[in-house]
Every structure is written in C-alpha cells, then in structure tokens.
C-alpha cells in the first residue's frame, strides 16, 4: 500500500475521534540481524496537507529522538555510529487544519453544523543504511488542542506508533 493511501485512510478514520492518536505501520524489509541504529536527517513533512511548522523545532526533534531511543532500547537495540549502524532512523512531523462537515461537504456554505480541528501527524522511517530502502515505517495522527502538553502527547504518540516494532532478534 502506498504511503499516501495509508495516510488518507488514517486521516479519514481519525476525523471523528476526539484526541486519540491513530497509528499504522508497515514492515517493508527484515529487521532480523539488525542491532544498532543511528538517527539521520529529519525532513519536513509534506503529505496529505500536513506541513512542517514552528512546532517541529529543535525541542520537538530532541523529544522525538529521546522517546524513540527509549523505545528502541526497550527492544534491545543500541545506538551506534551513523557509518556502521545497522539501521537509520528518520522522522518528520507536521500539522494541518481540517474543516469537519456532515457528509464531508466542501465549499463556503455547508448544510448542518461544521467545525475546525487541528491535526498533527508524526511519521517514523527505519532505513537500511546501505540501500537507504525503508525497512519499517510507522505513522500516527491525532487532534491537536490549544492547551495540549506537547511533551506528553508526542511521547505517547511515539510509544503508540512503536508498539508493533519488533524486538531485536539475532
């Protein structure tokens, strides 16, 4: 399934929920034999209307890196130098505003009530260091509220997205 298709489904499923993070993942290669990881560049998110904004600042990036490290450590993986790690980790995040209407109506005038919500999305990619091919990816999105504790929310999202990530096997 293509990434964009997955996210479309994900967003569609999530529009009616309050604040839960909707997650999906896709295994695209083998993790067997991989024991070390290193973080790579953090590209901006430009998918399905999500764009990287001021919230994806160095504070947020360190937070995501820290939460991911803890998840990987709990599964037996250890950090290593980028030039010899057995997998590279990248992540990106963004937000977008949705107008929620009855029956997904579009246009300047809609029937019934309508409201706006802000959604945030987080995408994790695990790459083979040599081929740069994606071997595992996970993503999640949820409603962002004005008074959210971003630290708590993002760490919970990382935890949720990483839940199906397999433990190290030799």
């Amino acid at each position, binding site marked *: 399934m293509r990434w964009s298709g997955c996210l479309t489904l994900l967003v569609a499923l999530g529009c009616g929920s309050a604040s839960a993070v909707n997650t999906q993942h896709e295994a695209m290669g083998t993790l067997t034999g991989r024991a070390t990881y290193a973080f790579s560049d953090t590209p901006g998110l430009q998918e399905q209307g999500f764009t990287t904004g001021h919230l994806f600042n*160095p*504070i947020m990036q360190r937070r995501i890196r820290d939460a991911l490290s803890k998840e990987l450590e709990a599964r037996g993986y250890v950090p290593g130098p980028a030039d010899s790690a057995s997998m590279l980790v990248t992540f990106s995040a963004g937000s977008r505003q949705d*107008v929620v209407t009855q029956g997904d109506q579009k246009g*300047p*005038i809609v*029937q*019934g009530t309508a*409201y706006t919500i802000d959604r945030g999305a987080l995408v994790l990619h695990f790459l083979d260091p040599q081929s740069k091919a994606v071997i595992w990816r996970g993503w999640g999105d949820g409603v962002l*509220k004005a008074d959210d504790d*971003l630290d708590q929310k993002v760490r919970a999202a990382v935890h949720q997205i990483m839940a199906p990530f397999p433990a190290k096997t030799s």
Partner: protein
Amino acid sequence: MTFKHLTHSRIARSTPRQLLSTASALAGLVVAWGCGTAPMHAAADWERGANLEPSKTFAVARSPFLPKELTTEQAALLAIVENTTKNELTKKGYHEAAADQADLIATPSFIKRKRSDTVDASLYCGSYDVKVTQGTLAPPATALQGTCEETYITQYDEGTLLIDMYDTKLSELVWHGWASAEMPQAGSSVTPQQFVERATVDILNKFPP
C-alpha cells in the same frame, strides 16, 4: 559562542517559503494588525528539565527568521516586542546582560498562514447568536431549520508571534512560545502596537513554565 552559532542549524533548515512567510507576516502586521478584537491564544513548549530560573541573565537578539531589511513600521513593531520582552523578563526577576554574556537569548519572529473558521448561519435567521468556533466544536444545531441549518466556512489570515529562548551554555533552543490571532481588517480601536505588545505579554506569561 555567539548567537549566530546558536541559530546556524535552524537557519540552514529554513526554507525560502518559511522566510517569505516571515516577511509577509511582518508586512501584514503593519497593514492589518490594526483592529485586533479577535481572541488571541498563547502557548509554549519547552525542554523539560531545562533550568529557566529567574536568576539567569538574558539578552534579546534579532531572529534569523526575520527579513534582513525591515521597513520603518516593521522595525517599530519589532522594537515594541523586544522592549516588552525585556520589561516582562525583568519583572520576573531575570537580569539583562550583553548578548555574549547572557545565559538566555530571546528572539522574536512572526509567521502568517491561512486558516478556516466556521460561522453558524443562525445569525441570518433572526438570531443574533453568532457562533464563531475557532478550533473548537461548534454547538449542536438543535432547532435549526431551513437555511438556518447552514454553516459558513470562512477564511482568514492568522498572524503568529513567536519567541524563542536559547540557552547559550547548551547552545540549544530550550523554550518556544507563541501567540496567534486573526489579523483583522483595518478600522479597529486596537492599534498594531497594542496588539503586538499584548501578544508578547501573553507569550511571556507562559515563561518560565
């Protein structure tokens, strides 16, 4: 270490679109932030565990996200933000210092983006109860009939003032505050100067966390 070093990585990551947006927002502030009656919301994110105690020294510096050349009006608004920042931090017990000696460096910047809003059409059905719902659930339309069941989707320009706080010893961004509001049409009783001052105060009410 200088502020230039602190922000170098962020400058490198800035896209032309971001920088253009910043310039546009500043221009918009001058032209349009003249009648701010719309609700303003301030929030902050920060590095948990960072030491932001008021015993620290601070300086206010020019953000790399601002255009290099500012108009007179833009420079005047920026000066208000900078002076208000200094005043608010001083009131909280922080001490101003030279940029190369300060523990914390605050840098204000601006962005602008298009947003949508919903307006309940019951206004046009004899009711004067306009329900403007920015980012929140609209009230249920329990007794609306006919055209009263319609909701208008409108678009507006939202301006956001950002204040970044860097820890010079860690060479890291440790606090990020922002305040957003609609950039209204001209004609309000609130001046752009009052508007940016209020945004700055609202943001720094969140500091330290």
